[in-house]
């Protein structure tokens, strides 16, 4: 297209001279002209800026790659493009309203954010043991469904980034089923603010359990499509096996948790090691691999789907026995007072509940007013609570000064820590493997930047 001496005329790949050397901007289309130009400069070292707007960086992640030929000599990740100040915002809202903020951090795993936060608030309140069993079972069930939805995006987009389109279509098809269930149960598909301090926002709607059983069966059947297309697939193996290597020592020192840690062979899962929400009462396995590579992480996520379905089935059995049990703590000075119900125009305030508090119970009206306007007080102190999200340990450090608003809420996001491993996984490997390695970490930038 252009000769090595003449100026580049490719509209998608312009170049300019800077003090740092020649800079090429590639926005799509043909790389040939750039490659020809770079070949002519006799420069050994090439720095490639990838992202933050790039289809295969898994979100607004910026990677700066230093290359020698196609080999990466140095990699740096740049983050912060999705920083929203969620932690600061929670300090200006009541404890209950905090849920609506934190649910938006890791937007693929909202229920894990909410549960980690609510477990922390409950610990500070000292009501951990007062949370009704039905609420805990619903939390577990929703989290496991959320894990499936999240892993589906991880697998689907991961495959897509490596050029496999069909798994993406299968995965998003399964995820849609889970999101439909979320819509049925919470009224929202994402960012549902369903888990609240003291329990969950509302009980399951009528007919939810049969629908859940049906969905579990469909998911179990349809997961096979992905397994058939990817497990043992020669091209998939060539792109993933032995790629993005990170062993146990590296993972521990970098604070890596979740499937990346389990791909080193260590069966570390908070659901087993520090059970919360009654996870000790469920029968499931912690899946590991010992390959320390992208393929191992892929296999772990595939198997965790099956384990999640196992847990969900046990939840449904428990929920059938707990029909009609409360889903919020009995303490009226903490429990969120409003009730929702499904009307002809969608989910809204329960008219029966409003009739009751407006017409018959002065005390309920007072509690409603106080809790909604001021919120409840949380004793001064600090706690750390953690749950096992699809990406690893999501921990929350909550500080209270005894007021109706959090003093400080900080999230230890698994994506944030795991993303630090990109350099360790990629340096010395080929540029094409970066995409596979990042996809296997499965960072969600909303969680990384908060």
């Amino acid at each position, binding site marked *: 297209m252009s000769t090595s001496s003449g100026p580049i005329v490719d509209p998608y790949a312009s170049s300019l001279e800077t003090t740092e050397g020649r800079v090429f901007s590639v926005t799509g289309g043909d790389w040939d002209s750039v490659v020809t130009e770079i070949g002519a400069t006799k420069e050994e070292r090439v720095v490639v800026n990838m992202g933050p707007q790039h289809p295969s960086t898994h979100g607004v992640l910026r990677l700066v790659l230093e290359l020698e030929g196609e080999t990466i000599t140095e990699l740096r990740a740049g983050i912060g493009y999705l920083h929203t100040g969620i932690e600061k915002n929670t300090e200006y809202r009541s404890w209950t309203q905090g849920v609506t903020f934190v649910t938006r951090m890791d937007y693929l795993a909202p229920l894990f954010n909410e549960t980690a936060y609510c477990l922390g608030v409950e610990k500070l309140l000292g009501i951990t043991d007062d949370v009704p069993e039905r609420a805990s079972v619903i939390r577990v069930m929703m989290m496991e469904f959320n894990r499936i939805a999240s892993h589906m995006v991880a697998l689907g987009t991961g495959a897509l980034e490596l050029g496999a389109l069909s798994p993406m279509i299968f995965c998003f098809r399964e995820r849609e089923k889970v999101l439909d269930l979320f819509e049925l149960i919470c009224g929202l598909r994402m960012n549902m603010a369903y888990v609240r301090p003291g329990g969950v926002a509302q009980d399951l709607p009528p007919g939810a359990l049969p629908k859940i059983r049906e969905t579990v069966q469909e998911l179990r059947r349809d997961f096979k499509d992905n397994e058939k297309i990817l497990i043992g697939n020669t091209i998939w193996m060539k792109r993933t096996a032995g790629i993005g290597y990170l062993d146990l020592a590296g993972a521990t020192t970098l604070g890596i948790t979740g499937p990346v840690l389990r791909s080193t062979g260590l069966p570390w899962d908070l659901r087993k090691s520090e059970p919360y929400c009654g996870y000790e009462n469920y029968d499931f396995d912690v899946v590991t691999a010992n390959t320390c590579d992208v393929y191992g992480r892929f296999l772990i996520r595939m198997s965790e789907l099956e384990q999640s379905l196992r847990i969900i089935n046990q939840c449904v059995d428990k929920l059938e026995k707990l029909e009609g049990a409360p889903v919020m703590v009995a303490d009226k000075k903490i429990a969120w007072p409003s009730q929702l119900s499904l009307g002809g125009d969608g989910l809204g305030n329960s008219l029966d509940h409003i009739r009751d508090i407006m017409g018959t119970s002065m005390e309920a009206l007072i509690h409603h007013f106080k809790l909604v306007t001021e919120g409840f007080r949380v004793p001064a102190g600090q*706690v750390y609570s953690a749950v096992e999200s699809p990406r690893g340990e999501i921990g929350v450090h909550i500080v209270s000064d005894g007021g109706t608003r959090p003093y400080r809420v900080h999230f*230890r996001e698994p994506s944030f820590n795991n993303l630090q491993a990109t350099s360790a996984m990629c340096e010395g490997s080929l540029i094409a493997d970066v995409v596979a390695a990042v996809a296997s970490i499965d960072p969600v930038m909303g969680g990384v930047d908060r």
Partner: protein
Amino acid sequence: MKKEKNLSVGHGAFGSADTGDTSGYGGLVRASVSWGSSERPYGSYFDDVVDDLERAYPDFADAIERVVLYRGELTLHVKRGKLLEVALVLRDKLLFEMCLGVNGVHYPTETDRELHAVYPLLSMTHNRRIRLEVSVSEGDPHIPSLVEVWGGNNWNERETFDMFGIIFDGHPGLTRILMPDDWRGHPQRKDYPLGGIPVEYKGATVPPPNERRSYR
């Protein structure tokens, strides 16, 4: 455990400039307290952890200012000069292999100890958790970096520097991580308003949240 002292007392729905007491009868009083040392026995595995640390680290009495047990969690308040030594002993002798980052907290009323850095530690071998806490003043916000001990603290320390202005000495590249490089101030400090700067969007200017009525 006893209250060491009341640091400040606030009234009303905290964080609001007016009383925030919507009903007028709230009588909300907040006392910002600093917890004193807890008495033994701490219960659970915490006695073992403290005993082991005392044995493995001779300077224990000098380095650890307070041991606080609250809501079933143990916090060791460490003097900043001893932090690196304590961290190494905890990692190598007590097998706290993992540090789950560092979080800053700003207590403007705690004179000369305004900035706190909190390190949650995890021992996967023993399945134990403890927490380290270091406090420094705003005028001298230096804390030794633990990146040499737990490499994964790299980004976490950068975030705490970015948000609180705590300077981690010995960090391999302490730069802002979430905010733009040329940002002024440290957004998570209590004297930094929410938002703080107006946002320009398509020619119109949206005032920062702290100047909007609903956030006051």
